[in-house]
């Protein structure tokens, strides 16, 4: 397949089945550069599974995922990351036994090979970058705190920060504001609007109010298929969507 497009991410006919159950089925998704795409959908719609396939965690049974015109399907996870895809997990995944500083430090995209890690040194440049990111994710005061002592919301931010350290061209966030308080959501929306410059972002989110504040385009997933796609306005007035998702 030769896609002559400007899309950063170009997904065609993507599908996966788990023991015959089609969790995602014939999905087409195109994400442009600098776009912020939100994927919504009821529980079990297959949202997380789509991200899993993009980042190589789950092998699709059909279809193609092209990122910067390179096929991602079949690539090793770490290679996909190195090509510029960053992914936040649905449950915050940080290193509880490392400090915030160290969490960010080990996410810095240098010294990723074994021998590279032996030779790696935390240069002033690295420290500078860590402070910069810590400032962005509201954790400047918490640099010396171990990950385990962070609040749930702070963990979510830290994981976003760990991705920012890698400066990915495509950032995928699975429910970044889940479990956050209202003020924390506020700050996260602010954060997302700041970090979206110069990169594409895919966000999975349930909170409609939050979605309407950040999304360019919203994709509604239902039973592994796309139910609707469009602006938040269009989605909110789409009768199918109202029926399966917003209705309850």
């Amino acid at each position, binding site marked *: 397949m030769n896609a002559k497009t400007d899309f950063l991410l170009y997904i065609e006919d993507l599908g996966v089945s788990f023991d015959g159950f089609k969790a995602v089925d014939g999905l087409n998704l195109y994400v442009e550069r600098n776009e912020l795409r939100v994927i919504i959908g009821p529980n079990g719609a297959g949202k997380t599974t789509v991200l899993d396939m993009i980042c190589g965690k789950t092998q699709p049974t059909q279809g193609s995922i092209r990122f910067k015109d390179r096929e991602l399907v079949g690539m090793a996870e*770490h290679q996909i990351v190195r090509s510029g895809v960053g992914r936040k997990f649905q449950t915050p995944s940080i*290193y509880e036994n*490392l400090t915030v500083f160290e969490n960010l430090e080990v996410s810095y995209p240098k010294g990723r090979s074994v021998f590279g*890690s032996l030779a790696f040194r935390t240069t002033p440049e690295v420290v500078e970058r860590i402070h910069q990111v810590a400032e962005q994710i509201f954790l400047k005061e918490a640099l010396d705190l171990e990950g385990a002592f962070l609040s749930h919301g702070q963990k979510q931010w830290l994981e976003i920060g760990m991705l920012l350290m*890698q400066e990915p061209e495509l950032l995928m966030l699975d429910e970044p504001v889940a479990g956050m308080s209202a003020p924390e959501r506020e700050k996260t929306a602010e954060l997302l609007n700041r970090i979206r410059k110069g990169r594409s972002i895919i966000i999975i989110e349930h909170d409609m109010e939050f979605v309407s504040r950040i999304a360019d385009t919203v994709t509604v997933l239902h039973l592994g298929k796309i139910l609707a796609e469009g602006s938040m306005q269009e989605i909110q007035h789409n009768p199918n969507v109202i029926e399966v998702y917003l209705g309850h």
Partner: protein
Amino acid sequence: MKAIYNRLFGGTTGVVQLGILAAILMIVLPLSLDIFRLNLVGKYLTYAFVALGLVLLWGKAGVLSLGQGVFFGLGGYCMAMFLKLEASDPISTKIQSTPGIPDFMDWNQITQLPAFWMPFKSLPFTLLAVVVVPSIVAFVLGVAMFKRRVGGVYFAIITQALALILSLAIDGNQGYTGGRNGITDLRTLLGWDIRSSHAQYLLYFTTCGLLVLAIVLSQWMLSGKLGKMLLAMRDREDRVRFSGYDVSMFKVFTFCFAAALSGVGGALFVLQVGFISPSLVGIVPSIEMVIFAAVGGRVSLLGAVYGTLLVNTGKSLFSENFPQLWLFAMGGLFIAVVVLFPNGLAGVVELIRKKVSPFLKNLRTSSTLPTSGSTPLPSPDKP
């Protein structure tokens, strides 16, 4: 400079702790033990190399291998092959039907030195092989296992099977390996009699020196980014993987490093004890090594050394007096450690330090209080 010092020794506490160990090994023990006992300690210390590797592999990388005896054995056999060839010169073996080959080959009607023995005529090759052969085996096995995400119990069982296979393979090929008796009658290293007490002292100190070096090297590795990556991997392996790291290669590397350390231990064993046999390669010694590391505290480098020394001293005392009971004692000890002190000796020491240090602080402050009380400071309101 300061940074390098911290990375090599783990700061001042690290230096003090390593200094204490080095002083015990290189001053206290040589002064207080006769050469027979010291040689025994030297033998235990060669196991400590394996235990050290297990701290890295099991304690730090979270991968339990029950087959580290394999690498100890490979290192030991490499060394033994060199020494055996030296001991089998045509003159001392002239009564054999084929002079110039090891005696057990001659007994097995082998008339020519097998090709894989040839390079072991060279000492530099042998020394290299002691490190490289175990590493290569670990690399092949590690890549095959870790790339497929085989870990935990499965990995432990597979390494155990490897230990069994290797010990049976050595046992079953007497003509090439010396079989069950192993390779024995090793006397000289480049003409130097390794059984003289002078040589045994020197080999003992060499073992101590290399062990300290191995600890410092391990400390250096752990103190840098690699150590943090291993910690992060134990914490959230997926997060590490999806941060652009090839997690399996970190495990492969640690496995290889642990194997290389074990190989060095095996070679030093052969030099000090003068023989090697498949009984040092198989399942039982492999599990014993894990117990040494567990007793010492599986995350503590120094703990592994103390654990090895302690368990082995206990073993020799026990088996001199109640030989039948030793296995039960060993099993009981292992269970006790795992259940009561999951961090082993190092954990107990840490616990005591935590309990004692506030007490010491109290002592210090209360002893300074009276002095300041007896000579009251001139107060500003009394000019």
